[in-house]
């Protein structure tokens, strides 16, 4: 899970609770669902967070939540931004893949080292989460004083979001002192290389201009000219992305964080070719939450006043109302920084957290149902019991295997039509070359266990009732999945008859007719191999394992073996 680093001194400062010790803070943070993982080199708390409350990705947001938890804040607070001065003009040339932009001006920020560090972290964490590694939304923060807006109409400064040819223009990107084209950046700049995949397929690259020229190449990198430092007082925040809602919400989270540092927000006009919007959008949604549903989910009775109190302590605001069918409901106002409230149920979760879920008394539900095992699982258990009774050690092996283990080391070829060597369902990006496909039979796994345990005492009689799969176009998933009964007998006198005796016993146990007509199979010794035919259908193979296969597995004892489909014993 993702983590966020929080300076405990900053937290004390921003919550106004100087008296809290580090341990107090750690406990209070756990209550918010932020788990203390350890400390960074600088002594900051490393906190693990669940990726729903993205408004808590910086110390400002965490402090806000804690103030609600402590009861220092109640209800919803919305900053009032000043009217727009700046405009972002969206050109027709903007790449179709990344059509959206949003922004805000932030004035009078007191950016000391800590505040700047926190802002950078917030930006990174938002990129990693909501921004989907910048693919869905990317943030650019600029020193406003370094921007020169083209005076378009009536003295309103304007910047342009446009699309440019990869080599059309040049700028000096961050962490560099050379002029580069966007194409150069993707080629030669470290950050450019990291994010090159996001735009390399685009015909035109996204770019932002002021009257001086190109100053940002979203979502890859900003220009050096507008770089933010601790001396910056006024900021221009812009975000581009593939979804307007997502970047607007990211913007709200950044605006709330800067506002908590005492900054003044100022709106920005976004002038699309076909419409104009004003951002940040700090409007609020309401959810209608039924009183009954709150009581049902939490399993307790609550007064309406209590519900309203819980809502306010969660940073929400609830008003009593009546639904169309006359039931008590609440109109709950959701603040603009919340991105996780999709449904009234999410409000109920907030109320439950404010109430304290661990305060609730567990109760065993009074619901009568009848339990039972799946037929396959009952069959599997019964066969396993018989096999253990026959002296087999029950095995449990991996379903993923390599081509080499599954086929070559047993001397079968993938295109062969012999039992076991079906066509493999293969994995696109395997963990390693040992796990590239699903095994098509269990025999390879059993031989691998024998190979691995040659230093252990014999006899080694192993059996596995295990999963196997092969490509089968007649199946909806394209894969035929089955359970196999596989067994190997490894000891100095192991022979065909030992294996056959046990197979016969199984057939008797499950009252099926067994025949073993001779067959050829490259894994087994010719003349000592038979097909397993149960109730007239060929379902497996039995034989003495070929010395070639034994030697391949470093075995120095004979091995006899069988494998067949579990379903044949039904």
């Amino acid at each position, binding site marked *: 899970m993702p983590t966020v680093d929080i300076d405990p001194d900053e937290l004390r400062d921003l919550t106004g609770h100087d008296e809290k010790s580090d341990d107090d803070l750690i406990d209070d943070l756990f209550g918010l669902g932020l788990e203390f993982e350890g400390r960074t080199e600088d002594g900051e708390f490393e906190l693990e967070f669940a990726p729903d409350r993205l408004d808590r990705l910086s110390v400002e947001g965490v402090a806000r939540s804690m103030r609600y938890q402590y009861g220092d804040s109640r209800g919803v607070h919305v900053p009032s931004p000043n009217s727009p001065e700046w405009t972002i003009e969206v050109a027709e040339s903007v790449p179709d893949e990344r059509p959206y932009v949003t922004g805000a001006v932030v004035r009078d920020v007191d950016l000391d080292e800590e505040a700047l560090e926190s802002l950078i972290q917030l930006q990174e964490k938002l990129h990693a989460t909501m921004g989907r590694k910048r693919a869905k939304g990317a943030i650019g923060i600029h020193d406003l004083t370094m921007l020169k807006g083209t005076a378009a109409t009536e003295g309103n400064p304007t910047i342009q979001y446009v699309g440019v040819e990869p080599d059309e223009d040049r700028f000096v990107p961050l962490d560099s002192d050379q002029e580069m084209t966007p194409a150069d950046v993707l080629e030669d700049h470290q950050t450019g290389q990291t994010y090159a995949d996001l735009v390399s397929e685009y015909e035109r690259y996204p770019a932002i201009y002021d009257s001086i020229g190109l100053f940002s190449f979203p979502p890859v990198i900003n220009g050096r000219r507008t770089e933010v430092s601790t001396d910056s007082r006024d900021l221009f925040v812009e975000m581009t992305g593939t979804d307007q809602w997502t970047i607007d919400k990211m913007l709200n989270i950044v605006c709330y964080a800067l506002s908590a540092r005492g900054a003044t927000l100022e709106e920005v006009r976004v002038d699309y070719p076909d419409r104009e919007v004003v951002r940040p959008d700090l409007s609020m949604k309401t959810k209608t939450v039924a009183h009954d549903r709150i009581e049902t989910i939490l399993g307790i009775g609550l007064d309406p006043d209590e519900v309203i109190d819980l809502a306010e302590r969660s940073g929400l605001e609830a008003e009593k109302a009546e639904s169309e069918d006359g039931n008590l409901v609440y109109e709950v106002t959701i603040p603009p920084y919340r991105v996780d409230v999709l449904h009234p149920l999410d409000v109920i979760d907030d109320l439950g957290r404010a109430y304290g879920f661990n305060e609730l008394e567990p109760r065993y539900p009074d619901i009568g149902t*009848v339990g039972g095992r799946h037929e396959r699982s009952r069959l599997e258990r019964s066969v396993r019991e018989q096999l253990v009774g026959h002296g087999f050690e029950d095995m*449990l092996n991996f379903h*993923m295997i390599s081509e080499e283990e599954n086929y070559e080391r047993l001397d079968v070829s993938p295109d062969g039509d012999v039992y076991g060597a079906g066509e493999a369902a293969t994995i696109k990006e395997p963990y390693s070359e040992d796990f590239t496909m699903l095994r098509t039979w269990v025999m390879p796994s059993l031989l691998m266990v024998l190979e691995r345990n040659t230093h252990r005492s014999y006899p080694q009689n192993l059996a596995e009732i295990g999963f196997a799969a092969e*490509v089968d176009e007649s199946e909806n998933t394209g894969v035929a999945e089955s359970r196999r009964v596989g067994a190997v007998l490894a000891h100095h006198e192991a022979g065909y008859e030992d294996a056959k005796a046990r197979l016969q016993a199984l057939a008797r146990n499950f009252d099926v007719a067994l025949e073993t007509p001779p067959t050829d199979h490259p894994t087994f010794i010719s003349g000592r191999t038979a097909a397993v035919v149960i109730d007239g259908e060929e379902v497996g193979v039995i034989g003495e394992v070929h010395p070639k296969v034994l030697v391949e597995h470093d075995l120095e004892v004979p091995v006899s073996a069988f494998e067949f489909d579990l379903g044949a014993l039904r």
Partner: protein
Amino acid sequence: MQLPAQQVAVLEAANADEALSVDALAAATELPPETVTGAVFELEDEGLVAVSERTDETVALTDEGRDYVDTGLPEVRLYEAALEAGADADPVSMGQVIGASGLEGGAVDIALSNYARKGYGAIEGGEITADSDADPDADAEANALEALADVDDAPVDGVDVDSETLESLERRGLLERTESTVREVTLTERAVTELMAGIETAETVGQVTPELLTSGEWEDVEFAEYNVEADAERFDGGKVHILRQTAERVKDTLVGMGFQEMDGPHVDADFWINDCLFMPQDHPARTHWDRFALERPTHIDDLPADLVDRVERAHREGVGEDGEGYHSPWDEDFARALALRGHTTSLSTRYLSGEEIGDLEPPQRYFSVEKVYRNDTLDPTHLLEFFQIEGWVMAEDLSVRDLMGTFEEFYSQFGIEDIRFKPHYNPYTEPSFELFGTHPTTGELVEIGNSGIFREEMLEPLGVECDVMAWGLALERLLMLMYGFEDIRDIHGTLCDLELLRDTEVTY
């Protein structure tokens, strides 16, 4: 008359006039004394010998006693050193004498405590005097040690030492007495008669055979004795795999709690694995490297079209009047991509949708204990494939209290008490909880599962109109908690160690 060979040998070695000990008979017959003892008892039962018992007392020097045979008693050495130092004339400093005597450690105390007792002189105020009349050569204890030096377990009345000296040596821990029972055997008259008539040796038999039983011969034979204490060759009977045993126990518990078992495909469409769970298509877990997508085959053939529509609508628009969807792309082709299931919740979505066994009416309880696949780092606590315990309860109006009560009941069956619920986030449940329990032996708080109430955005498209609460947990985690295993790779998979599997304690 017929008797087993050992008994015949004992009879022939024994005498009607002279009682012979078992040891003597053993020497004469060249049989082990235990065998002779056994034979004697059987012969006594037959009335062929008379056995008398007496208790013999033997003495032997302890290791300390033997040391003094070589070095001399400490008090004697002290006396000799004192004489040397002229203590027979004037008192001499004790330190000087002890130094000269070469006595060290405990031996000094022993010398001092016996010195005056045996009249070698006096010790007073740190000075020592020696009695010039004392004679170490007449020291009874020293002489007794000499006399006993070469005998081992000598009968107490056979040694030339008076009983008083023996007692004082025993008190000093220089001598040990051992009591033993000696059996002496004499032939009875009947034995003499039988011997004159001639006694045949019966054969001993190694194995009970069908011939022996049917012929009745078994009545006359004697079975060769085994060393019944010796270890037999190692035998390893078959055993159900330890992880399987744990899975069975979980299944039994859940069946007992009214749960029905689910079954379904390991290779499944993302639709069933993720989309039906209201997991947005751009969720990091779906594009993330921890998923095993299939290279071949790539896509499922058919998905229920109306269900696909409903799921897509939930993703785009949300559910209910105030519902909101995700601001994420949704593409059916993406949903049809095949992967190894990353959780068995794909079975739950299949069952809840009615696709698997038809529509379900509440109340219902379902579970599975099946394999899931995650592209995680393979290490002592993580496998690429592991078993997930999945369970859900469908009923009208479920609360988080019902959820908590159900899990407390389940975990208490495995000795895990005091469950704690940490509010958590899952895309498909709300409220959601991580479950923490106290490790039964170490007392640590460990994460034991993830749970919650399925969201309406998940249930509504599936056609479920009541509440469903669910939870998941790795079976291996439960196993490691129960058994304290440290490396799961020794247990599960082809790297397993047979010895560990064979020797793991069975539980119930």
